[in-house]
């Protein structure tokens, strides 16, 4: 017999959502990314609250569907709510997630989003995630997805992506 009390449903759904991955960063879960903001029990069903990273990021739609699918395994009436405020920030990305990014060849966001200089990378050194050299160069503040900038390493000559501080 499955325990249907609100608190155990919230716990079960939260566990289930640990396996929902960001479609563009498949080694990171929506929890690692700080995209899942809350799981609560309301009006007789589970509500999963998510927030988009960038307003136009196409991954948000996929994430929303994936979260709903996973939550409905536990509660068939579960719903997803998308909230814009407070706006998502890279400060919400966990330190484990930052280590996973580096291990996967993506330089994680550095510093705090409250420091405007970090936003554009001006005067800040983004170390190469591959050879760890600090001799790197910004190629473009934009990249393959809205959240990444393009860099190249002057030591190992490899191009790499940097998850922008946002």
């Amino acid at each position, binding site marked *: 017999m499955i325990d249907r009390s609100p608190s155990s449903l919230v716990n079960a759904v939260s566990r289930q959502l640990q396996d929902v991955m960001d479609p563009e960063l498949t080694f990171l879960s929506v929890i690692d990314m700080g995209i899942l903001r809350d799981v609560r029990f309301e009006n007789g069903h589970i509500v999963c609250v998510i927030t988009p990273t*960038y*307003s*136009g990021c196409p991954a948000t739609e996929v994430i929303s569907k994936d979260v709903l699918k996973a939550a409905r395994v536990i509660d068939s009436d579960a719903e997803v709510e998308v909230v814009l405020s*407070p*706006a998502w920030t890279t400060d919400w990305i966990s330190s484990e997630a930052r280590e996973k990014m580096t291990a996967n060849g993506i330089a994680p966001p550095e510093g705090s989003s409250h420091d405007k200089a970090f*936003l554009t990378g001006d005067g800040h050194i983004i170390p190469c995630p591959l050879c760890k050299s600090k001799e790197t160069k910004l*190629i473009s503040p934009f990249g393959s997805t*809205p959240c990444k900038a393009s860099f190249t390493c002057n030591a190992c000559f490899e191009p790499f992506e940097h998850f922008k501080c946002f």
Partner: protein
Amino acid sequence: MHALLRLGDDALVLAQRLGEWCGHAPALEEDIALTNIALDLIGQTQSYLSLAGSLDPVAPKTDDELAFLRSENEFKNLLLVEQSNGHFGDTIARQFLFDKYALLRAEHIAQQTFDLDAAAIAAKAVKEIRYHADHSSKWIIRLGDGTSESHSRIQKSINDLWEFTGEMFAADEVDIAGSIAGLLPDLSALKTQWDVEIDSVLAEATLVRPKDGAMKTGGRTGIHTKELGIMLAEMQILPRTHPGASW
């Protein structure tokens, strides 16, 4: 609702213009940059138009209905953003003049408490537009302070677009009502800030700020230049020909 439509339409029309660069920009990195900026603007459009459409008391509309099923005279965007792409310098000049304005406007909306939904959208938009404004400003400086060829061409781009900048600050009844309510910034104060921002970048770029002459207006009331109709024809043909199509 009119104020929100203007915000959504500015973002939508500029996004569509930038999307036209996809596969055509001078370098791969710039192709990616312009389309990334377009994507951010499409996201802002979806938020603003969804909110505007939900406030229609008679017939609530979705963001897609507002984007694809309105005709030219129902669009309330600035004339500046509908101007055709021209060469890369023209596109960057248009972006620079708009980004500096859009950033100041979004910063105000993010902080006001009259409409909290709009504030939430703007708070996200501010972070995105900061990147856009940084990018377009750096290009203005690189082109202006570059070769004599790039200098003269970007100067001409700015000169040619200047007649569309007055409309950003020409307050009508929607702007005044929005400003009194608190949602929109006071446009004359915004102009003072914009002037400082623009002058500082132009000076660094060794470019000359054009003299304010006769300014073109009409976008806010649905009277557009010929560029918009041609753009909308392409943007809207699929949903108008095949209503409800999806893939």
